[in-house]
């Protein structure tokens, strides 16, 4: 699977949580740009975990700030 395919699947998962319709790029941040609170983050992480059948530990979540970083993390976890 390529980066783009993962990016597209992640973007599709972000969609229902993107209430403000923020345009997505790899550098979009979850906290500042998407303005997600911790509850939204939790629901979103669960959605990503189910979509890719992976675990994103809270330790990893602390390091992930942007969409691009999430794509890289998912790529690593599904490799």
């Amino acid at each position, binding site marked *: 699977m390529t980066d783009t395919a993962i990016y597209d699947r992640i973007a599709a998962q972000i969609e229902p949580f993107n209430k403000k319709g923020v345009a997505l790029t790899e550098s979009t941040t979850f906290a500042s740009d998407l303005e997600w*609170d911790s*509850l939204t983050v*939790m629901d979103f992480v669960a959605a990503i975990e189910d979509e890719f*059948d992976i675990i994103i530990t*809270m*330790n990893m979540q602390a390091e992930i700030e942007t969409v691009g970083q999430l794509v890289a993390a998912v790529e690593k976890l599904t490799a």
Partner: protein
Amino acid sequence: MTDLFSKFDALIGEREALLSTGVRDPFSLVMESVKSPTVAMCNGKETILLGTYNYMGMTFDDDVLEAGKQALDNFGSGTTGSRVLNGTYAGHRECEEALKEFYGMDHAMVFSTGYQANLGIISTMAGKDDYIILDIDSHASIYDGCALGNAQIVAFRHNDVEALEKRLKRLPAEAGKLVVLEGVYSMLGDIAPLKEMVAVSKAAGAMVLVDEAHSMGFIGEHGRGVAEAAGVIDDVDFIIGTFSKSVGTVGGFCVSNHPKFEVLRLVCRPYVFTASLPPSVVATAATSIRKLMHAGNKRAHLWENSKRLHQGLRDLGFSLGTPEAQSGIIAVIMPDMLKGAQMWQALLERGLYVNLARPPATPAGMTLLRCSLCAEHSSEQVTQILGIFEAAGKDVGIL
């Protein structure tokens, strides 16, 4: 130069805005004198206590008080030392014996607070390559235990058995796993489906820790907690509890049947590097724990109180945290922080104390008025409480 306090500016602003509306500060109440487990003087007014977690009303029990006074006379005011050095007195051992008997377990370790018990056991049991799998609504002491250690932390949706099972299955089969659950979740007063959760955890080869802080003494035939009531206590590896609720003093503990448990006394830092509980505290705790073994009638009365308050508040039209009374906690959901603070004050002015709980302690950003019942609340007091809630709710415009 950066003022290190500037990170708190938002909170300071929010507090000032709230207090400027004229409400009293809900987080600086002083109990001027305490008359019984259910009545204290606050702002010069006699006040019914409905937010103390003093579930079994042991704080003024004659035998408990006598044990404390004797220990003060015989052992002094404090130990001035760690449990592993000069801080283990006969009373600490007696307290651990009482816990072993209470739970029917092989080992018991007494900590200086319940917070430290979670901090110590969680951070020590789960090492660097181990996984801690916890409910997202876990108490701060559980999260802080995770932060103190360096295990991998995996959270699952509150009380969701399927979410827990799915995550357990995705973890490496050979990795060490500790599933951390609570019997009663203290914000909404809901209980965990422990039967199912313990079963899926054991099937995945995980050890299970259950924090029974809010159920000890009250839930289960012998008051051992939700794990007892669910019939899975023998499959639980660690039970964490506290003396600051049903037991009626302060302190924390862990009980376990694991044959290697005693080694924790040497490696658990929040146990080793702090002073032990004062002799009077362990004496009151041991006496109280032994009395709680035979408190079936009090348990029954507390259930009556809890069910009646729940039904009464529902009939008045309040929105509650659980569909029925599941524990000694009834959480009344407030529309927002301001209404919550106004309601809290209106209750207090009419002689009723409850806990005001706000984010981040609460789930889903809720503001809650948390009521915790006591086996010593009389039926008349419950009637009074409902009357005060009705009057205050109308004052504030919630009803």
